């Protein structure tokens, strides 16, 4: 494991993990009985991890959401589904690799799955544009949502983006229009839609595929109107104030549940999703399947009315 793949607050945990595995190697090599020592270190590890993870700051959660080993959309697709058939292109301009989508089987159930895709190294990140979509990405997503509607398949959306891409081409091709259209069209899409924020949910770039009947968030994901860096650059005139901006923005899963934006927080494995992607994917899959089973009971008019009411209620004001 490279050092850059370990966050500062993870270091004591990783060091202890290494110590335990060294001791195990040593014990088996030297044929020594060290199980009591190992057991005691393991319970110490458990305790340390609980302590560190029970008092994470919002900024630390942002770092977990961006963890270089955090599972991305394609990881979940591979872990949760079979027979994934990726579909490409917006039929207007291009195929945006920052958004992936297609049909797949989840425990034998056919559905559409769409999400932003980040890369794991520089080459992949350039290919996927760091998970920052252009208008053609939002238009591809909408094309796929309409396909799901046409053929009566539910849709699962995995949100993980540092934002819609701010560039010349993106503006020329109508970034704002593409996102706005998705907001309107997704709110009346006549199939169940489950949205899960799996990592970063930055602004309109996230919301642009984020309209559905249920909004779930992984425990250490974040979701806000702007990235902490962007907020800090504008309000503090200094991107280095991002940790403070993260606190101010109240962008954690717990915050969003309190503000009645997300319906459920999906718990991550001890140490975060990257510590056990298989368990994370299993948990997520069972939540998705249970939710779809519930939503599919509803007559379509009720589903749509509930979806409208859900977003209609959002906001805090006095009068």
């Amino acid at each position: 494991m490279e050092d850059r793949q370990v966050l500062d607050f993870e270091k004591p945990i990783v060091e202890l993990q290494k110590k335990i595995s060294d001791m195990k190697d040593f014990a088996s090599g030297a044929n020594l009985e060290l199980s009591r020592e190992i057991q005691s270190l393991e319970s110490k590890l458990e305790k340390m991890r609980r302590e560190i993870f029970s008092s994470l700051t919002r900024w630390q959660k942002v770092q977990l959401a961006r963890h270089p080993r955090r599972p991305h959309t394609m990881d979940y697709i591979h872990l949760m589904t079979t027979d994934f058939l990726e579909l490409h292109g917006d039929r207007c301009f291009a195929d945006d690799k920052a958004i992936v989508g297609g049909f797949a089987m989840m425990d034998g159930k056919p559905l559409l799955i769409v999400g932003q895709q980040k890369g794991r190294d520089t080459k992949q990140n350039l290919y996927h544009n760091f998970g920052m979509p252009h208008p053609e990405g939002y238009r591809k997503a909408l094309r796929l949502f309409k396909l799901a509607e046409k053929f009566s398949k539910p849709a699962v959306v995995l949100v993980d983006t540092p934002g819609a891409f701010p560039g010349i081409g993106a503006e020329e091709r109508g970034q704002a229009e593409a996102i706005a259209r998705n907001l309107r069209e997704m709110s009346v899409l006549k199939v169940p839609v489950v949205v899960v924020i799996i990592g970063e949910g930055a602004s309109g770039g996230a919301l642009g595929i984020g309209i559905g009947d249920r909004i779930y968030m992984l425990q250490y994901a974040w979701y806000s109107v702007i990235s902490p860096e962007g907020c800090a650059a504008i309000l503090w005139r200094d991107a280095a104030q991002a940790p403070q901006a993260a606190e101010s923005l109240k962008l954690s899963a717990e915050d969003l549940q309190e503000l009645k934006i997300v319906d459920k927080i999906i718990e991550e494995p001890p140490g975060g999703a990257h510590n056990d992607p298989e368990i994370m994917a299993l948990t997520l899959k069972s939540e998705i399947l249970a939710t779809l089973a519930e939503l599919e009971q509803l007559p379509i008019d009720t589903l749509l009315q509930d979806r409208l009411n859900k977003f209609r209620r959002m906001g805090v004001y006095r009068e």
Partner: protein
Amino acid sequence: MDWFKKSKRGFTGSEKKEIPDGLWSKCPECGEIIYTRQLEQGFWVCPNCSYHFRIPSQKYLDMILDDGHLEECDLSLESRDPLKFKDSKKYPDRVKSAQAEAGMRDAVRAGMGKIGSVEISFAIMDFRFIGGSMGSVVGEAVARAIERSIERNVPLVILSCSGGARMQEGILSLMQMAKTSALLAVLAEKKIPYISVLTNPTTAGVMASYASLGDVVIAEPKALLGFAGPRVIQQTIGQDLPEGFQSSEFFLEKGFLDKIVGRSQLRETLILLLKYFQR
């Protein structure tokens, strides 16, 4: 979200008052010195370069609506501070000083009015109030304006002027994009016309929701429009932006506007559009 980014079109929060109160005014675009009375009579448009000075919402009401009359609704809507947001200033203090400065409760006014004797539901944003930014109050007022359109079966006209979603209300501001756009889907299903008018600036969260969703989208000349702020784009791509990038003229050329309409023609254009869409 980039409501105080500077650009050469004079889009900056520090310049609170663009309307000059002296006898003579200087055009921020071409530098022409203009007699203020002449400017006022000419819809606050520079006679030399046709730069559209940014004007308060009341002046648009006077210009667009029959008798300049808006039967205002939801006047008591006021923002709260759900995030307990603090940067250099506490959010409630920021709201209070904006209220004092703009003489409004928040960045939008909405209600019923008439244009050429046609009854409409109307909402207008005001840049003087925290850069016209959209928080819960703006979202709610726009949502109710859409609902009045639906309930009374009358056309909807929204005039936007906003740097985007209001950061101090975090995720709640973002969700106003979803709330308003979802109601516009209902409006569209009822085949009720919606005309969106964009003024300088209309960007980010407002542009990426209701402002872009008109059956017809028209903009004032030379307005700054778009999703991302010019400075953010410049920093991201590390190169200078082309001349006229993100202007109304740019977006008309790229196919995202139906028409650019000068202020002096705005009312006449709206009257004609409403006539064509009347059932």
